[in-house]
Every structure is written in structure tokens, then in C-alpha cells.
């Protein structure tokens, strides 16, 4: 293996090229584009919404009697997803997540499915609250609003569970 000194000696024009190009060397050139912590959090929020929508879809496909209750809630999650995706502005050209990462088995009964959805909504509220700090003011407001929406979903699902 050539040492750095040997490499430079073998290529007298390399130092000049590096200086003129402003290049600091291969390590910098090969580094992946950095994604801010705020954007990483936002991308995780997008994935979380995709996962929630997937559970709703599975529950509705399995238990058609729940459709009237679940369809409006799923529609609101789809609206959340759209707004979250619209907030992703970096890194340029990066594809916003569109893949579901968690596919749990849907509850064995419609009642179990409702409880499963309520648990998922409660967890979503907690997670969304944890995203507030470190977010820009407008993004924090979006997270807080979505958390409030999800908190109402918990109430709707609880009422449906209680009515059974």
C-alpha cells in the first residue's frame, strides 16, 4: 500500500488540484449528506403515520362493521401524513418515506382490534409530544395539533369500546 507521502510524490499535480478545487480530501467527498435532527424526527413522524394508517386499513378490511367509526379517523391520519410530508424540505432530493415499517397482526376480534387501535393512538400521542422540543415553532404547532387530534381518536375508540 502506498503511503500518503509516496502518493503525493508520485503525483506532483495532486496537491495543486486539491488546493484549486477547495477539496479537503477523499473523506469529505465520501461523507453522506447530513440530515438535521429536526428532519430525522420529521421523517420518523411520517413513518409513524404510515404505520398507523396501515393498522386502520387492516382493521377495516377485517371487520367491516367498524368502518363507520374508523373511516373518519383514518382520513384524519391521511391528512396528518400529507401535512408531515409537506414539511420535509431537506435534504434536497431525498425521498420521503413511503414504506410501512411495522405490520402487527390485527386483533382476533373486532373488540380486540379497537383496543389495539386505541393503544396505538395513545402511543402516538406520547411519541408526538416527545417531538415538540427541538422542533421549529411551526413544526411544534403541527405536532401538537396532530397529538390533540390523536387524543380525540383515543376518546372515540374508548366510547366505541365502552358501547360494545
Amino acid at each position, binding site marked *: 500500500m502506498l503511503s500518503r507521502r509516496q502518493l503525493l510524490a508520485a503525483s506532483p499535480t495532486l496537491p495543486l488540484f486539491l488546493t484549486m478545487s477547495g477539496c479537503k480530501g477523499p473523506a469529505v467527498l465520501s461523507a453522506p449528506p447530513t440530515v438535521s435532527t429536526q428532519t430525522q424526527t420529521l421523517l420518523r413522524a411520517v413513518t409513524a403515520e404510515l404505520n398507523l394508517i396501515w393498522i386502520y386499513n387492516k382493521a377495516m378490511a377485517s371487520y367491516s362493521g367498524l368502518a363507520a367509526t374508523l373511516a373518519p379517523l383514518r382520513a384524519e391520519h391521511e391528512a396528518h401524513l400529507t401535512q408531515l410530508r409537506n414539511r420535509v424540505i431537506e435534504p434536497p432530493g431525498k425521498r420521503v418515506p413511503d414504506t410501512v415499517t411495522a405490520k402487527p397482526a390485527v386483533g382476533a376480534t373486532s373488540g380486540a382490534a379497537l383496543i389495539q387501535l386505541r393503544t396505538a393512538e395513545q402511543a402516538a400521542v406520547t411519541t408526538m409530544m416527545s417531538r415538540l422540543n427541538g422542533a421549529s415553532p411551526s413544526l411544534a*404547532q403541527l405536532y*401538537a395539533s396532530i397529538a390533540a*387530534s390523536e387524543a*380525540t381518536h383515543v376518546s372515540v375508540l374508548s366510547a366505541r369500546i365502552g358501547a360494545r
Partner: protein
Amino acid sequence: MTAASASVAALQGALAAEHAAVYGYGVVGAMLTGTRQASAHTDWTAHQVARDTLVTMLTRLGATPVAASPAYELPFGVTNAKSAAKLAAALEDGVTRAYLGLVAVSNPALRTFAAQAMQTSANRALTWSGTTTAFPGMPT
């Protein structure tokens, strides 16, 4: 505007909304009976507690809490139980919007406080209106 003055302004906005809710629930309760009136009374009390909490927070920050207005103009006529429930939902929407403003401040504790308050008011709005919204507090 400094971070401290922004926090005070947003807290004053939330307090003004709580003052309005306390007034408004008086109108709501007068049009209801039975369990619905009891629910209105519970919510009226909760808004009084929230109002007092905000007054304490502002005082600790060295600010003078905004006072309640002598009277408030209702957004529509309240003449029966149905319009009373509609007013209650509107009051809760107003409170949710005010707390959304407080979420925008940089203080982490205030952000969390406001976001939790939004969940409470959004759920009260659900109770009165019977419907959910995708983005409680956000401009439509």
C-alpha cells in the same frame, strides 16, 4: 420580541381565551338541563382552574394578567340546547387555538403544557360537537 416577552404574550392570549370560556359556559349552562348541564358545569369549573393557573404563571413572570372583559359578544344567538352545545364547542375551539399559539414559544415546559391543554380542549370540543377534526387549533 424576546423569548420571555413572546411567552408572556402567548400566555396572555391563552388567559384571554379562558376568560371567554368561563363567560361563555355561563350562557351554555343556562340553556341546558340534566346531565348536559352538569357537563357544562364541570367544564366551566375546569376553565376557571385553567384561568387561575395562567394568572399564577403570568404573575410569576412579572407580568400583569389580562382581565376578563365586562361582556363578550357571542358568535351566534344561543336560544336552545342545540345552539348552547354549538357555543360550547366554539369556545373550546377558541381555547385550543390560543394554546396552539403558546406551543410556538421556545420554552420546553410551556410547549408541553400548551400541547396538553390542547388535547383537553379538543376532547371537550368532541364531547360537545360529536365530531373530530384533523388539526385542532390550526387555521382552516
